[in-house]
């Protein structure tokens, strides 16, 4: 996978997200595809939500039958959590999911 490729999350919720890239747009890179159902995304800037901030999002497919295989060539509807700890690439799935705050519903694409 090209780790420098920019991906875009277009948010459905929050419906009124504002980022340096515009309304409901978050640009960043994929740091890690943990498995077909869990992905680590790093935004190009800090995101603020209900008193917490961070740039690491933990994404999972929102819809049945969707997964992160061949993510470079398709769009996927995702739920995203803002990671609340210092990210370490060795973290396991449970650590990633348990240490984030549900932040967005959106579409991940490139």
């Amino acid at each position, binding site marked *: 996978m090209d780790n420098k490729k920019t991906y875009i999350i*277009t*948010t*459905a*919720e*929050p*419906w*009124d997200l504002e980022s340096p890239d*515009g*309304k*409901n*747009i978050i640009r960043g890179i994929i740091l890690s595809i943990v498995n077909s159902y869990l992905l680590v995304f790093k935004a190009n800037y800090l995101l603020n*939500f*209900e008193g917490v901030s961070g740039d690491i999002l933990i994404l*999972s497919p*929102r*819809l*049945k039958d969707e997964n992160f295989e061949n993510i470079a060539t398709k769009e996927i*509807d995702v*739920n995203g*959590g803002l990671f609340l700890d210092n990210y370490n690439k060795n973290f396991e799935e449970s650590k990633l*999911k348990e240490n984030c705050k*549900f*932040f*967005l*519903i*959106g*579409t991940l694409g490139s």
Partner: protein
Amino acid sequence: MDLFPIGGLTRLAKSGKGVVKAVDNVAVAAADDVAEVVGKEGGTIGFRYMTEGELKAIQQSGMLRGGNPGKTYFTKDLYKSGAHAQQRLSLPTTPTLRVEFEILNNPTMRLNGSKVLPDFGMPGNGAEFMTTDPVKVRLINWQPLR
């Protein structure tokens, strides 16, 4: 599909078997096997669970989500508490309002009552509808949630 306006009443009819439920302000869409609730303009009726800011944006723009970019999700499920709506629909925030609307345009639906999956400790299991198109609406009413 034939439409039967019933001045001022909403009715839910199914398969001509006489299953009828009175609500407000809608009309009946009758079909052989499918029941659908439609508004007085003939559009689909739905709910979105939101906060005051989005309601104001809808009132100003006439569009769900204020017409902002991104997909639009809604439901036909009726919840009376914000926490229940959040859990069943797997929403990031707790809504404070249930807003009922009628769709006035013809968005292409990508999800049509799909079951919401569990995630982030929420059970899901609500039914969600989703479109990538802007959704023009007529507001029917809005209610504060417990």
